[in-house]
């Protein structure tokens, strides 16, 4: 396998450092153009369910960034990784390491060493935690610590005993100082102070000449004790600072990781419901608490993602002032504890988007030190809600613009199409009423024109009304099972009465099933399509065919006209769309009506170029289930 195409393997646990490992692996994979695998090893010891859940979150995140995800079971982490690295031919393996060690331990890495022993054929990259990230070890005064204290003091005394006597305080003092410092470092301040006192006593009893005599008040003894005490205090102070720094670094890493995950989840959310679900999930994980978004809805509050089941929890409106910016003294974004829950204002850039309510699952579970992260969460959620609101506003504006554009097109078209026949009628009637002689032929001609033009007006108005009613949903489709033949017959009959003979070849198989449709509306569709065919291919027979496909009935009206340019095959169904402005008759509503009717039936209609020239309009109507059976006694 080509070296550059071999994957990069990254081992992920449940710790927050996984985020750094994921980012490093993703970056390395991108730089080398190689695939990458995010692996999680379940050791037989078995981690806590909670850790396992967190590990899953990291794996999902890695997958989103393009990693292949593998979860393997192995007795030890090293064995699992070694096996995986071998089977996947990984070119590099990325591991994380904390600084939870004595300095000399940092030179090695237990898992890394074991991997090397197992003959890993991949470059090993060990990522250290940031400097200062010491793991916290709670100092205690357990039995073991006490025993340890005595052991260290014993060792110091033994060492001091070897020092040549005669008041060599300058040599004994550092030995004890070192001992006390070690004790204070490992087992805490309490034992440190105790060790200072004990070492002063030990020195006094065992080392000071004459031995085993108590010579209190001797000034070097007091000095010795004070020096011990000071050393213990200094070491403790130093350690406290270091520990605090370590906690801070670790907390930062956890914060960054959880904020990162929340941000990713929020960015994917497209509705307030999804924002609420993401927020509740991540807050639940980070704070061990149940969270709701309370969004204002008129005078009430909508609770997402679930309704609040506990009536004891007050609604935001019952909280009194405090959640709006400027209502409260101090930081208006601080959590407001009420009724066992905490309330945070979700304030975006310009206004409050809602309220975040958090109910800790454990008593006293939301101490003020977690508030900083909580506020960051609230800010992110607020921004996500604000983004959705702006999107919605933009969409609404777009719809309004579109409606406005359509309205002006419509007014223009209607204005023109109504005025033309009216002008003709008005003019003809005026001519007929003029004093003076008109020939009989002229008179009849004008009258025929009045009749034709008024029919055109009636037709246009009918179409407009149909479309309006179809689009507004006023018109209810009354579907009944019926033979298509009957609808075709009705349409042909009406078209013939209206416009004379209709040149169309009809091909309906005799075994077509009944189909549920609204006869009056479908007749309108057929009339529009047939009239269309006749208008565009005068004198040429149109073809009307029908057939069944699984689950639907297909109907096709095809003409041999000039055809429709491919770019317009879809647009001809738009309202007032005409292929040529000078087109005779049509006002560009017929096909729009067809589409509205067919869609109201749950079907679809489309136009396509017909092989051999012309256009074919194809309708698919759903054939749900079995048609009703024939009455008894039917042939």
């Amino acid at each position, binding site marked *: 396998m080509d070296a550059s195409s071999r994957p990069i393997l990254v081992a992920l646990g449940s710790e927050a450092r996984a985020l750094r490992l994921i980012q490093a692996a993703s970056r390395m994979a991108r730089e080398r153009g190689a695939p990458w695998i995010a692996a999680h090893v379940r050791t037989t010891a078995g981690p806590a369910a909670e850790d396992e859940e967190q590990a899953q979150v990291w794996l999902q995140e890695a997958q989103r960034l393009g990693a292949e995800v593998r979860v393997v079971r192995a007795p030890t982490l090293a064995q699992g990784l070694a096996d995986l690295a071998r089977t996947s031919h990984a070119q590099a393996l990325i591991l994380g390491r904390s600084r939870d060690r004595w300095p000399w331990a940092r030179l090695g890495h237990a898992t890394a060493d074991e991997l090397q022993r197992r003959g890993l054929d991949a470059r090993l990259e060990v990522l250290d935690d940031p400097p200062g990230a010491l793991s916290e070890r709670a100092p205690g005064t357990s039995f073991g610590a006490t025993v340890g204290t005595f052991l260290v003091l014993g060792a110091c005394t033994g060492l001091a005993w070897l020092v040549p006597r005669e008041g060599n305080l300058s040599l004994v003092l550092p030995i004890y100082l070192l001992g006390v410092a070690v004790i204070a470092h490992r087992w805490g301040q309490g034992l440190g102070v105790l060790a200072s006192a004990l070492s002063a006593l030990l020195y006094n009893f065992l080392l000071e000449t004459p031995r085993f005599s108590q010579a209190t008040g001797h000034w070097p003894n007091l000095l010795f004790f004070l020096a011990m005490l000071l050393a213990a205090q200094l070491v403790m102070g130093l350690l406290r600072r270091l520990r605090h720094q370590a906690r801070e670094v670790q907390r930062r890493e956890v914060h960054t990781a959880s904020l990162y995950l929340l941000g990713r989840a929020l960015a994917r959310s497209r509705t307030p419901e999804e924002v609420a679900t993401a927020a509740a999930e991540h807050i639940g994980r980070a704070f061990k608490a149940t969270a709701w978004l309370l969004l204002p809805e008129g005078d009430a509050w909508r609770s997402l993602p679930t309704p609040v089941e506990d009536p004891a929890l007050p609604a935001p409106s019952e909280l009194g002032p405090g959640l709006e910016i400027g209502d409260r003294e101090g930081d208006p974004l601080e959590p407001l504890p009420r009724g066992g829950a905490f309330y945070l204002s979700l304030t975006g850039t310009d206004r409050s988007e809602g309220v975040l309510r958090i109910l800790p699952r454990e008593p006293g579970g939301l101490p003020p030190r977690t508030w900083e992260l909580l506020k960051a969460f609230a800010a992110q959620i607020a921004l996500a809600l604000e983004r959705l609101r702006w999107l919605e506003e933009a969409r609404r504006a777009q719809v309004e613009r579109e409606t406005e554009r359509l309205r002006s097109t419509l007014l223009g078209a209607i204005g023109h199409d109504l005025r033309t026949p009216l002008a003709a009628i008005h003019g003809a009637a005026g001519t007929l009423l003029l004093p003076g002689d008109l020939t009989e032929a002229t008179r009849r001609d004008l009258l025929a024109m009045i*009749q034709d033009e*008024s*029919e055109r007006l*009636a037709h246009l108005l*009918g179409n407009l*009304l*149909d479309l309006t*009613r179809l689009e507004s949903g006023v018109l209810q489709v*009354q579907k*009944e*099972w*019926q*033979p298509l*033949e*009957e*609808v*075709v*017959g*009705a349409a*042909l*009959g009406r078209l*013939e*009465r209206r416009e004379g003979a209709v040149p169309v070849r*009809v091909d*309906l198989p005799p075994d077509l099933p*009944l189909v549920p449709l*609204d*006869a*009056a509306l479908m*007749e309108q569709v057929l009339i529009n399509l047939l009239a269309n065919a006749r208008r565009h291919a005068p004198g040429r027979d149109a073809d009307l065919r029908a057939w069944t496909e699984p689950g639907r009935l297909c109907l096709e009206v095809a003409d041999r006209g000039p055809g429709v340019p491919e770019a317009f095959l879809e647009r001809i169904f738009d309202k007032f769309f005409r292929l040529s402005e000078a087109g005779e008759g049509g006002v560009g509503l017929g096909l729009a009506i067809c589409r509205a009717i067919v869609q109201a039936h749950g079907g679809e209609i489309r136009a396509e170029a017909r092989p051999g020239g012309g256009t074919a309009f194809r309708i698919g109507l759903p054939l749900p289930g079995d*048609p*009703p059976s*024939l*009455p008894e*006694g*039917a*042939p």
Partner: protein
Amino acid sequence: MTAPPGGAHPPRILVVEDEPALRRFLVPTLTGQGYQVLTAATATEGLAQARSHNPDLVLLDLGLPDLDGMEVLCRLRAWSRRPIVILSARNQEHDKVRALDLGADDYLAKPFGAAELLARLRVALRRTIPTEAGDTVVAGGGLRVDLGRREVSLEGRPVHLTALEYRLLEALVRRNGRVATHAQLLAEVWGPGGEGNTHYLRIYMAMLRRKLEADPTRPRHFITEPNVGYRLHLDGPG
């Protein structure tokens, strides 16, 4: 046709229509054809006119200002068997069916032409001309139905119909060109309880067409009124 069908005196037609423009068109058209015309602009006036003059036919607009057209229809039907033709706006199939089921004889959708109006009036008036006694044979456009002998022939050749098909044909023949709603045909052919099985009716109508129409997709005789019902056309093509 200048002389209206019927006996010695010209048929009297009551036009109940609130639109002056339509009255202005209807009155000269009907008078020109030899009918005697009465007009009413409101339902109340129409009902009063019908009482006092007992017209041979009422042309009733469904959209009247003072009373619902259906109500007027019911009140007229309470005492008169004379034909009533409804004038309705386009696309109100539901209203048409209701009016027909309430006893109207036919309907005309606005806008309509003079020729269509006159043809419908002739068909509606023919109902009152007694045909029951002797005239049991109807024929036209190649189709001949002898109700007395229960014989049907097309272009001179006898056609065999099943019992249900014949009953359906008979129900249409007896209407003499007037429209029959789905509900009416179902009740007459299948008896009570047949309502709602409109697809039975459609299947039998399709069978009738296959036996009695030259081209079932271009019916000449069995005309479909979508979402309303059927009418039988025997007066030749068109």
